[in-house]
C-alpha cells in the first residue's frame, strides 16, 4: 500500500496521465460530433432530457464510460502493485475459463458470440484478455531467459500467447485475435531472434506480392535475385546451398500456396477485405463501400477540415460505424490534415512515453509489460488508422481512447494504469 498520497502522487508518471486525458477529451469531442445530428440537435446535459432519452446518444454513454474509467483508475493504482505480478496466472486462468464459456452464454451480435451482457452493460471479454495475457506473459518472461534458446520455455510462452487468440477466433472475433501478434515486439525486445520478425514481414510481403503480381513473374524475379547473389559470391553458395535451396522452395511454395490459403483458410468476408485492400473497386457496395466512403470523408477534410460538427460525410451516415471503428473519419473530415497529424503525434508521444517508462523498469516483468502495452496500443493505432485510409485491411478493432465504447476504454485504461502503478513503485523494487 502507498505510504502516503503525497509520495504516491510524486511517483506517478504525470506525462502519461496528461496524454491519456488529452486523448480521451479529444476522443469524446469526436464521438459527440459523430453522433451529432443537425435535425435533432443532441440536446445536452442541461436540455431537460430524461436519463433514458440521453442514453440514446453515444456521446452521453461515453461520458458514463469515462466516469467509470476514472473509478477504475483509482482502483488500479490503489491495489498493491505486487498483486499484478502475483495474481497474473490466476487472472489468466480465470480469463481462459471466461473465454471458453463466453460463446456458450453470449447472444450472437453481428455474427460473433463475444459479448457478455450484464444488465444494460455489454462487455467483450476479448478486450480484457489483452492486459491479462500481457501480465501473464510478462510474469513468465521474468522467470525464463529467451536468449538461452530453451525450446521448452519458448513453447510455453508461445502457448500462453496463442491460447487466448485461438479462443477468440473460435468466438468469431478475428480482429481482436490479431492484436496478440503485437506481443512479438515485446518478445523481440527481450531477446527473441529478429529472424522471426524478418521472416514474418517477408512472408507478408510475399503474400501481398503474390496477390498483386503474376505468380510466374514473382518466382522468376526471386530466382534471379537468389541466383545473382550466389553467382557473385560462390563461397557463400558452397557453404549454404541446402539453406538457399530450402528458402527458395519455401518461397515458391508460399507463392503458389497463396491461392489455397486465400480460398480455403480465409472466410469469405476476410477474403473480401484483403481483395478490397488491393483493389478498392472490388465489392463497391460491401466492404469496398466502407473503405471508399472512409477515404472520401477523410480526404474531403482538406488541410484544416470543415470545422467542428460541420462534417457532412460522417454526419449523413455515409461512413459506417462512425463513432466506433471509423472515428478517425470524423477527425479527418472536421479537423483536416492538421487534426489527423495532431492525433498521430499524440499517439507517437504516448507510445514513446510508454516505451520510456518501460525502459526505466528494473524488473523484466515491468519492462516486458510496458512493451506489451506499447505494442498493443501501436497495433490498434496502425491497423485502425491504416484501414480508414486504405493501407490496411478492414479489421474491426477500435482506435484506443478515441473510439466510442466501454470495453475498449476500460481495456486501454487498465493496460496503461497497471503500467503506471508498477512504475510508481519501481523505487521500492530497488529497495527490496
Amino acid at each position: 500500500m502507498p505510504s502516503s498520497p503525497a509520495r504516491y502522487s510524486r511517483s506517478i508518471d504525470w506525462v502519461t496521465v496528461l496524454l491519456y486525458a488529452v486523448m480521451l477529451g479529444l476522443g469524446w469531442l469526436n464521438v459527440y460530433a459523430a453522433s451529432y445530428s443537425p435535425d435533432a440537435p443532441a440536446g445536452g446535459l442541461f436540455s431537460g432530457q430524461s436519463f433514458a432519452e440521453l442514453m440514446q446518444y453515444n456521446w452521453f454513454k461515453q461520458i458514463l464510460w469515462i466516469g467509470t474509467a476514472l473509478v477504475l483508475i483509482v482502483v488500479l493504482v490503489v491495489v498493491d502493485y505486487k498483486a499484478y505480478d502475483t495474481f497474473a496466472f490466476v487472472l489468466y486462468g480465470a480469463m481462459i475459463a471466461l473465454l471458453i464459456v463466453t460463446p456458450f452464454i453470449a447472444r450472437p451480435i453481428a455474427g460473433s458470440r463475444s459479448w457478455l451482457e450484464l444488465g444494460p452493460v455489454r462487455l467483450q471479454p476479448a478486450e480484457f484478455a489483452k492486459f491479462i495475457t500481457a501480465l501473464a506473459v510478462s510474469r513468465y518472461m521474468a522467470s525464463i531467459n529467451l536468449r538461452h534458446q530453451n525450446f521448452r520455455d519458448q513453447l510455453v510462452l508461445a502457448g500462453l500467447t496463442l491460447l487466448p487468440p485461438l479462443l477468440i477466433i473460435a468466438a468469431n472475433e478475428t480482429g481482436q485475435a490479431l492484436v496478440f501478434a503485437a506481443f512479438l515486439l515485446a518478445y523481440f525486445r527481450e531477446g527473441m531472434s529478429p529472424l522471426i520478425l524478418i521472416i514474418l514481414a517477408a512472408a507478408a510481403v510475399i503474400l501481398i506480392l503474390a496477390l498483386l503480381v503474376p505468380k510466374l513473374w514473382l518466382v522468376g524475379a526471386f530466382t534471379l535475385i537468389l541466383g545473382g547473389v550466389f553467382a557473385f559470391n560462390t563461397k557463400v553458395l558452397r557453404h549454404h546451398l541446402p539453406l538457399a535451396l530450402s528458402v527458395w522452395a519455401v518461397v515458391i511454395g508460399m507463392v503458389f500456396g497463396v491461392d489455397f490459403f486465400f480460398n480455403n483458410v480465409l472466410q469469405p468476408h476476410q477474403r473480401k477485405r484483403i481483395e478490397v485492400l488491393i483493389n478498392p473497386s472490388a465489392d463497391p457496395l460491401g466492404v469496398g463501400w466502407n473503405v471508399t466512403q472512409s477515404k472520401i470523408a477523410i480526404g474531403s477534410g482538406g488541410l484544416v477540415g470543415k470545422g467542428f460538427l460541420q462534417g457532412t460525410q460522417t454526419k449523413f451516415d455515409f461512413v459506417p460505424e462512425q463513432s466506433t471503428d471509423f472515428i478517425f473519419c470524423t477527425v479527418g473530415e472536421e479537423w483536416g490534415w492538421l487534426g489527423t497529424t495532431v492525433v498521430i503525434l499524440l499517439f507517437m508521444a504516448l507510445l514513446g512515453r510508454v516505451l520510456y517508462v518501460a525502459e526505466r523498469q528494473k524488473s523484466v516483468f515491468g519492462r516486458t509489460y510496458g512493451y506489451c502495452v506499447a505494442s498493443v496500443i501501436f497495433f490498434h493505432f496502425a491497423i485502425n488508422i491504416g484501414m480508414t485510409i486504405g493501407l490496411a485491411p478492414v479489421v474491426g478493432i477500435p482506435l484506443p481512447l478515441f473510439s466510442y465504447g466501454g470495453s475498449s476504454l476500460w481495456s486501454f485504461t487498465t493496460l496503461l494504469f497497471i503500467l503506471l502503478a508498477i512504475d510508481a513503485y519501481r523505487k521500492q523494487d530497488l529497495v527490496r
Partner: protein
Amino acid sequence: MQYLEGRKYVVHAIFLAVALVFGARLFYIQVLDGSYKLAADRNTLQRLVQVPYRGLIYDRNGQILVQNTPVYDLMVVPREVKQLDSARFCQLLQLPLEELRTSLKAARAYSRVKASPLVQNLSTPELAAIQDNLIDFPGFSIKARMARSYKTENLAHALGYVGAITPAFLEKPKYAKYLPGDNLGITGLESFYEQKLMGRRGVQYRMVNVRGIEKGAFRNGEFDTLSIAGQDLHTSIDIELQKYGETLMAGKRGSIVALDPKTGEILAFVSAPLYEPSILTGKGMGNRYMELLNNPERPLFNRPLMATYPPGSVFKLVNELVALQMGVVTPETGFDCNWKLVRCTHRHEPPRNLSIAIKNSCNPYFYQVMRASVLRGRSTNKFEDARLGLAEWRRQVMSFGLGEKLGVDMSSEKKGLIPSPEFYDKLRGYHHWNFKTVYSLSIGQGEIGITGLQMANVMATIANRGYYYTPHFVRGIGQGGPLPEYTQRHVTSVEQRHFESLIPGMCAVVDGGRGATGASASLAHYGIAVAGKTGTVQNPHGEDHATFAAFAPANDPKIAIAVFIENAGFGGSSAAPMAALMMEKYLRGKVNNPRWENWLIGPGTDRFIRHH
C-alpha cells in the same frame, strides 16, 4: 544485456515509420488529391431543378390558345410494393396485365429504392378514379407536374407540340441545360420560341444523407437560383378566322395563309389535312403521334411552309411587274392571243392592254411579256442572251422574297425555287438552252416552286404597292413587342407606280363582269373591292391544283390571302370563293354567303379530293 537495449531503437523506428507513412498518406489524400472533395459533394449534394411555368400562347384578340394544366404520373418504388393484387390494380388503371408486368420490370431495373414512373400523363378525372384506391397499393404514389393543354381545336400546325427531349437532342450543346425526361417544344411556335416559353430553370442544392433523405439547404442556399416563369406569346392569329378557315378546308388537301399586309402578321394559317393540337398531348401521345406520322395523307406535313407548288397564273403578276420595271412593256402594251407557243385556257376578248390580259389570264400575252424582258439583245448569241436575260429577271423576282426563305418565326420553312441560268446549265448544258426552254415560267409553270406563305406574301407586297414585312406569327413576347427583324420593311426592286398600274386588272379579275376569272371571289355586294388572281396549276400527278391569291379592300388593304387546294381543278371555282369567304369573315366579322359555303363544305365536297 547491453546489446538488447539497442533493440528499443528498432521498436521506436517501427513506430515512427508507420507514423510517417500515415502522415504522408493523409497529406496526399487530404491536401494534394482534390478528388475526394468532389466525391464528398457528389455524395451529399442533390441538384433539384425547378421547371418554371411555361409561357402561354394567345391569339390576336387575347384569347388563350395554349395553357398549362396539371397532369399526374403514377410512380412506383419497387421495394415498397407488397402483395400486389395485380388483377384489381390493372382493372382500376385499365391497364393490360402484360403492360403492368413489363413496366414494373423496367422500374425494378432502374432502381429498387427510387421512384420511377409507371403510368404517365394521367388527367385529373383519371386520377380521381384511382386516387382513393391507391392506399390499398403500397409503393405507388402520384406525382403532379404541368403539361400543355389546348383551348382550341385549331392551329395545330402553327402551334406545334411539346414532348419529352430525346437522347439525340440531349447530346447537342444547344440543349446542354436539359435533363432526360425534360419537356421542350418540338415543332411550330413551341419549338421556335422555346427559349422564351421555357423561362429559366431554378436550381436548388440540397444536402442528402446516405439514404437520399433531405438534410437541408447547402450553405444556406447561397448557390440556389429561383426559377423564372416563361414568357407568354401573343400571336397575330385571329382564332375565329383560323377556325373558319379550317372548317372550309376540312376534308381537302391544301393551305390557306392570310396576312395583314400593313405589318406582315399572319392572321390565319391553315394546313389540310387537319388534326387537333390536343392529339399530341397527354396519355397515349406517342401512339397517336405514330398514327399521324404513318397516315398516307401526311397530316403532320406543314403545307403552307413546306409544300412548294408551281404558282400558276398568279405568278403572271410578278412577271408583269418585272417587265414594267425593266421598261420593256407598259400597261397599255397589247399582244395577240396567238396560241403560238402557249395555248390559252379559253377564248376571250383580245388582250389590248394589261388589265384585259390579267382579267382573262391570257397565257400568250404573258408569254410575250416575259419574252420581252428576257430576250433584250444583250448578246448576239441567242443562248447567251437568254442566260443574261434570265439572270436579270431572276434577280428582280427574288426581291419579292421568292426562291429563298422569308424568315418566318417557324423552322422547317422551304425556300421554293426560282431557277437561275446555272440551274438550266446543269439541266441542259451550258449554251444548250434558250428562252424556248424556260418559257413556261412566264405563266408560273415548269421549274418553279413557291410556298403558300410566299404566295400570300406576294399578295401583301402588291397590296402595299412595293414592299413587305417578313410574315410572322408573334406580335408580342411577354411585355415586349415582336422580334426586331419583323418590323423591317423589305422593298422590292419594282417601283410603286408599276404596282398601281397592276391593280385595275386584278380588280377586274373579280369584278370585271363577263369573262372575269375570279368572279366567285367578289365582295362587291358589301362594297368591298377585292383585287385577286386565279391560278390553275397543272401538275404531273393528276387533277390541277386550284389557287387564288387576293387582297382587300383594294385601295386600303387589310388582308392579303393565298388559297391553295390540291387537285381541285380550276382556281376560280373553289379557291376563289374560299378566299372570298375568308376575307368576308375577317373584314366583316361574319359570313353571310350560304351559296359558296354550301358549295365548299356542303354535300358532295368530296369532289375536292381527287386522287391521282
